[in-house]
């Protein structure tokens, strides 16, 4: 099994991954600067409209984004229960103070987590790890050894998942799977690590035998373009960030965290 596979027919699959990552940065900065519901809600609406328009709607509503929809309200609820109290107290129980202020913060936090995580997850699902490595090494000029080493390691994650399954079965076969799940889990994690290191060192030998890390200039079989499509993607990311900041300032809800 492999996690290093992306369907090449997805929209944006051919865009340099560096552009896709860069596009999410401005919005993240805006949403970190302010803690209000308006900015994040505007951002979410923009994201839904944009992703639907370019054909990523199915991915947006697929189970792959489910963790975002679950985690965001959970973060929000904890802010509601334990956030800095302000305004009228709605409910109190022990250290729990639900106030008007903490409810607002909770809603703003929920929206914020969705607004930042949703594009990250959706865009990442369109990124092929090989393309990302090409982008990081060729567009951003990160060291090839590091980038390709990480890429090769990523391919081993699939093997480690298989290892984990087999290790679980082997523990059942050896009669120790009835009790002590936590301790067994730790031992199993260690065993998985040992196997991963062994496989990794074989892979390293195979890579070295094929000239990896040899002195001299390395060439690239694939080109990482950074052209018009990439700039458009980055520009759209900036526009979404600008729209959400403008809306927050215009409605007077802009609320810089440290003020």
């Amino acid at each position, binding site marked *: 099994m492999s996690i290093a596979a992306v369907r090449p027919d997805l929209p944006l699959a051919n865009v340099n991954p560096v552009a896709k990552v860069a596009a999410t940065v401005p919005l993240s900065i805006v949403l970190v600067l302010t803690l209000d519901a308006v900015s994040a809600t505007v951002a979410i609406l923009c994201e839904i409209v944009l992703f639907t328009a370019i054909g990523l709607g199915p991915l947006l509503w697929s189970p792959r984004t489910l963790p975002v929809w679950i985690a965001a309200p959970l973060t929000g609820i904890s802010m509601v229960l334990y956030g800095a109290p302000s305004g009228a107290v709605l409910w109190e129980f022990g250290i729990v103070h639900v106030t008007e202020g903490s409810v607002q913060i909770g809603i703003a936090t929920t929206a914020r987590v969705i607004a930042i995580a949703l594009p990250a997850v959706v865009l990442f699902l369109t990124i092929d790890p090989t393309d990302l490595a090409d982008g990081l090494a060729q567009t951003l000029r990160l060291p090839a050894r590091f980038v390709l080493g990480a890429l090769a390691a990523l391919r081993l994650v699939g093997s480690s998942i298989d290892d984990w399954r087999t290790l679980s079965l082997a523990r059942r076969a050896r009669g120790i*799977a009835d009790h002590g799940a936590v301790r067994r889990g730790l031992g199993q994690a260690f065993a998985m690590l040992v196997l991963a290191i062994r496989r990794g060192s074989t892979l390293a030998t195979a890579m070295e035998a*094929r000239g990896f890390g040899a002195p001299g200039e390395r060439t690239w079989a694939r080109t990482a373009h950074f052209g018009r499509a990439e700039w458009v993607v980055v520009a759209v990311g900036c526009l979404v960030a600008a729209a959400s900041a403008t809306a927050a300032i215009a409605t007077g809800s802009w609320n810089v965290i440290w003020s």
Partner: protein
Amino acid sequence: MPTRDASSPRPASVTARGWGWRHGGRREPAVRDLDLQIRPGERVLLLGASGSGKSTLLHGLAGVLGGDDDGEAIGELLVDGRPASLSRGRSGLVLQDPDAQVVMARLGDDVAFGLENLGVAREQIWPRVTRALDAVGLDLPLDHATAQLSGGQRQRLALAGVLAMRPGIILLDEPTANLDPDGVREVRDAVARVVDETGATLVVIEHRVSTWLPVVDRVVVLGAAGGLLADGRPRDVVASRSGELRAAGVWLPGEVPWRAPRPEAAAGHPLLTAAGLDVARIPGSPLLRGADLRVDAGSILAITGPNGVGKSTLALTIAGLLRAEGGRLEPSAALADGLRGAPWRWRSRDLLTRIGTVFQSPEHQFLTGSVRAELEVGPRALRLGAVERTARVDELLAALRLERLAEANPFTLSGGEKRRLSVAGAIATRPRMLVLDEPTFGQDASTWRELARLIVGLRDEGIGVVAVTHDDVFVDAVADRRLEIGARRVAPAEHGDRR
């Protein structure tokens, strides 16, 4: 001699003069006092007992043994008259494990990887990639996912990867040990074609001599104590040195290391019956449907069939480790011993005295830091008393010749020792049935013989044995019955009127 491609590299020569290598942290050198000349274009089969340093020599020739931190070299090892460690790119190395040498996610990218590292210009890379893939007969799109390749295809991909680099010498370290018989032929034929076309020098390590005899023109046997044991034309070496080769664990052509005597008694009572069993590794995606089989006490059932057909999954299901997706799996009263339902409903501890499982790779089932502790895992889980526990473990250590290794760490054992230990761990709790996944896979002839004897011994004690295997010799010389899967994968709608 066939005409060579104009772009073919010059074949490389090899010279070893008093060469040796000691791995860092080891007291004894892995190779010592080696004097060897290989002329350009020679095709050499390299043999020797395990521990004679065959792999070390090959890694040395590939220049991947590392520097002074990794070990210590003695004497000279030259490729084309230059130190082997400096001539990377002149040699191409293919390793044993098909899973551990795929670098990239896409077929074409993987072949291109070596060329990129050598700094070949982009416009030359792709034609060379295509030509290398043609040469090994991998007729697939360049963006084909490497994760979806079979073992034989992966090994041919690794070969294409080194071939594209146009090495003067091709080095193969047991390239077919992990493959099913079709995969073995695929890879061997691809190698033969490639060396014919390029004229490159070839050095291959493999225990099963018959696979490579048609391809090589020289056999070199390394001695366990250093130096060469034999060197010459394949037929001569095999004929004149058969005793030494056999002692070194080499499989001589047409030989069966050991043949099981027919069982003394007829097969005993049935232990487990499967009817229309659908099995899945991951719940919800069945690999194999409608399997029927019966396991009898005192009989060895071999399950055979091509790679990827679901044999191992079937074995793990009848061993009570995976839940079946459909069909029936019924233990007899003798096996269930008071428990009800299918084996996958039983507790982990209850499996110990009923069904033992030996996994394909022994590392997956090791749990402790010493051989003795490893054998005590099961008896401890059964809460046997210390006296009984020690008695059982001592008996197993002696029976499987693991006594002198009792305190060793299981991970540091040799391949054959690991395999014996994993079987010993499973039988320490005296299960009535034993399921083995590829017990003899990739083993040299000595280990093979030991394992075959051990398994037949268990059969004669009345244990019902199931072995998933690609090994035709095992099926022929050891198994009592054979279940071949693959040809008839039954669709769900056809349930009920099979057989």
